[in-house]
């Protein structure tokens, strides 16, 4: 473990203040990182992590404070300038050309030339040398589009190394990775740190921060609430620093008592590009049961839920709810038959961002809130108020547009609306994605209460901890098929991780 050494700092942000209208995004934040150190930056949504990193990366200017690199004060006016000075960032979404090779992607924008022409041989040699030196599992000539997500991320890192970045910022880099890919990434990052690179690891995942980093800085409401050596802290302390209170972490709920089969899907098949997006998937969910669907994003989970919900046509297979065949019905009829749905995309699918909160909550209830064909504004308001109160949605009032709510509050509103349908089957996708730790506990408790009230839940989540916490039974999807079915006890991180990578049958 490397401790902060005052005499050698790769990065020193001092007294950074950044104001946005009505918000103090960064309030005299200090962040110092030594060369060769892996430093984790933690915080909930809106805590100021992204603002701080965008200041370091030259995307925005601090109102007060200084930035020092290797002891020299710098000011960036663009990301290009930052990268010239040795600061590089891997964003959450990759910026790669899928039809080009690894080499082409890496040298893009800084290609070696000979007599004004591209020097492909030197490009390839330079990239091969970097891959060799850092022990990456990449081949310079592979086409990026053919590579798995975890490997594409290494291409992004390679791009920064090629531009001689000494400080690497990684923003939530494990969000798209399998557990095995995450381990692989951590090995690479440790190697880079040992080579003298400085790593800034932005994350909200406690176990990853504890496993990887040397030191941690935690932000809350724009201020630093904890700065410590990782060895001196633990999960509870980090969570408390992030939320400002004690949080019950990773509670694993006991299994429920399943009743009769409520949702049954048999042989679901949906065509994709080339191979099927959904390939002969069958599953059953009982009343009072949560069936979890695990898997790396893009292995058919989205299509599975869309096919059951009626948002995507089935090419083959049947779906029944309470014995009624709904596989060919319209969405409205499926909902009437007993489906509710908390979608993965809450911005465009789950809500209307420009519409009022109250109208968002009334959507789907418009026929029930009417009497003799007339809507009654009073009842619509009451309906919205009940959901807002019961699910703790924080908003100025129900007339504000949905987009003014934070992600967590939007999710609570959608959750509240769908649970209020009291439908026998709830399809729920990524219920806590982008939601703060404090709210996660709340949402999990609501879902378990809903289960215990005798409803059937099909839960799709990319967070293994969420699957483990909630699911009574786990299906693992890989390349459009269900490759494993595990009981709650069998569903360990190791077993899930193996199956998610296609390693089980």
């Amino acid at each position: 473990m490397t401790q902060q050494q005052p005499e050698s700092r790769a990065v020193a942000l001092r007294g950074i203040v950044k104001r946005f209208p009505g918000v103090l995004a960064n309030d005299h934040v200090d962040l110092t990182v030594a060369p060769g150190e892996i430093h984790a930056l933690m915080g909930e949504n809106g805590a100021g992590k992204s603002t701080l990193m965008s200041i370091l990366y030259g995307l925005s200017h601090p109102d007060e404070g200084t930035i020092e690199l290797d002891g020299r004060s710098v000011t960036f006016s663009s990301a290009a300038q930052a990268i010239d000075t040795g600061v590089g960032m891997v964003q959450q979404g990759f910026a790669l050309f899928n039809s080009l090779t690894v080499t082409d992607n890496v040298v893009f924008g800084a290609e070696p030339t000979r007599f004004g022409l591209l020097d492909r041989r030197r490009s390839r040699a330079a990239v091969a040398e970097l891959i060799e030196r850092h022990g990456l599992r990449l081949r310079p000539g592979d086409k990026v589009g053919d590579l798995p997500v975890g490997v594409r991320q290494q291409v992004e890192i390679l791009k920064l190394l090629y531009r001689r970045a000494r400080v690497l910022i990684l923003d939530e880099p494990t969000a798209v990775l399998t557990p095995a890919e995450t381990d692989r990434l951590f090995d690479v990052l440790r190697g880079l740190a040992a080579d003298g690179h400085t790593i800034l690891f932005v994350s909200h995942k406690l176990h990853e921060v504890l496993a990887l980093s040397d030191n941690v800085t935690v932000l809350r409401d724009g201020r630093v609430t904890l700065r410590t050596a990782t060895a001196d802290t633990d999960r509870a302390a980090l969570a408390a620093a992030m939320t400002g209170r004690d949080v019950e972490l990773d509670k694993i709920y006991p299994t429920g008592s399943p009743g009769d089969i409520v949702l049954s899907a048999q042989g679901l098949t949906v065509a994709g590009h080339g191979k099927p997006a959904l390939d002969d998937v069958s599953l059953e969910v009982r009343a009072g049961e949560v069936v979890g669907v695990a898997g790396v994003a893009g292995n058919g989970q989205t299509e599975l839920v869309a096919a059951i919900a009626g948002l995507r046509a089935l090419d083959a297979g049947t779906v029944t709810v309470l014995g009624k065949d709904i596989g060919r019905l319209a969405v409205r009829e499926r909902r009437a038959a007993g489906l509710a749905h908390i979608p993965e995309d809450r911005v465009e699918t789950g809500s209307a961002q420009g519409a009022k909160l109250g109208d968002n909550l009334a959507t789907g209830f418009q026929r029930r809130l009417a009497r003799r064909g007339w809507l009654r504004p009073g009842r619509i308001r009451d309906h919205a108020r009940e959901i807002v109160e019961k699910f703790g949605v924080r908003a100025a009032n129900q007339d504000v547009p949905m987009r003014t709510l934070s992600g967590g509050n939007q999710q609570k509103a959608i959750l509240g609306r769908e649970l209020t349908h009291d439908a026998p089957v709830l399809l729920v996708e990524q219920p806590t994605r982008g939601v703060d730790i404090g709210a996660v506990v709340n949402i999990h408790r609501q879902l378990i209460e809903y289960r215990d009230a005798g409803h059937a839940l099909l839960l799709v989540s990319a967070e293994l901890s969420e699957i483990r916490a909630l699911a009574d039974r786990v299906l693992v999807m890989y390349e459009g098929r269900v490759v494993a079915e595990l009981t709650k006890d069998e569903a360990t991180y190791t077993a899930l991780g193996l199956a998610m990578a296609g390693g089980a049958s």
Partner: protein
Amino acid sequence: MKTVAVTLLAALALGAILLAATGANPLEAYQAIVTGAFGPDGFQDTLAYAVPVVGMATALAIPLRAGMVNLGGEGQLVLGAISAIAVGLHVPGPLGLVAALVAGVLAGALYASIAAVCETRLGVPLLVTTLLLSYPAMSFAAYLVRFPMRDEGSSLPQSDQLPADVRFTELAPGLFLIAAVVVVYAVVDARTPAGFETRVTGWGPRFAQYAGIDRPALTVRLLACSGGLAGLVGAVVALGFPYRFIDGALITPQYTWIGLLAALLAAANPLGTLVAAVFFAALTSGGFAMERETQVPRELTAVLQAVLIIFLAAATGLLRKRRNPA
């Protein structure tokens, strides 16, 4: 509201500069517009012009509320008018009046439904089907008044005059009919599940699909209402002076396009559409007065209107929506 007022002032200021640059007195010109639109002589003209503009604006606002654009208003308007005339020439008495109106509504509704079905069944975008189906409708009416329905006593492409008891000799009946439709639209929009579902669809097509709204059925219904109202406007205009169908008479005054503009500016909000349509109608009718009373050339009235419209469009959110889509 404040933004709109400021924009209006800015547009008027820019217009004043343009007017002054051509040697006209801006104050006089503006005064001519106002008295032309609302003065004792002009008010009747303004109302007569506002009725079809408000009607068409509301007709086009109905599908626009769900994010669907009906570009075929002209065709539906003309078919409504020619159908009303055809029926009115053959069914006598007060019954004829009602039958003519009903015929206008049905013709417009059916024709717009064809465009809707082309989208829902065949996947041809509504923008394309409505616009392209508009031309054959106008040509068909032009053919009818040149051959089978031609007024034998005239060399113009126009129909016979309606009998004396199948006429709107005053403005009032048409005005009340269109006003009633606007009220119905406002009430349905705000107070019925169907109106709510239309708004939900306008907020976001994916949200609407997720919430279980049957878009194809809604498309056909909204287009039928839209076309039906356009047909009604055609019938109302045809039943009024000069009590006959004259080829081109419904196209030249630009009822449809001014109406579409009003509906777009108001984001299809019922009351907003009404206000915008009346405003544009007054501006146009006042513009004619300005042309008569001052030395300002015809082209400059059009420029002045364009400046006002563009400024208003910029202020009322067409651009604002683009800027923060998230």
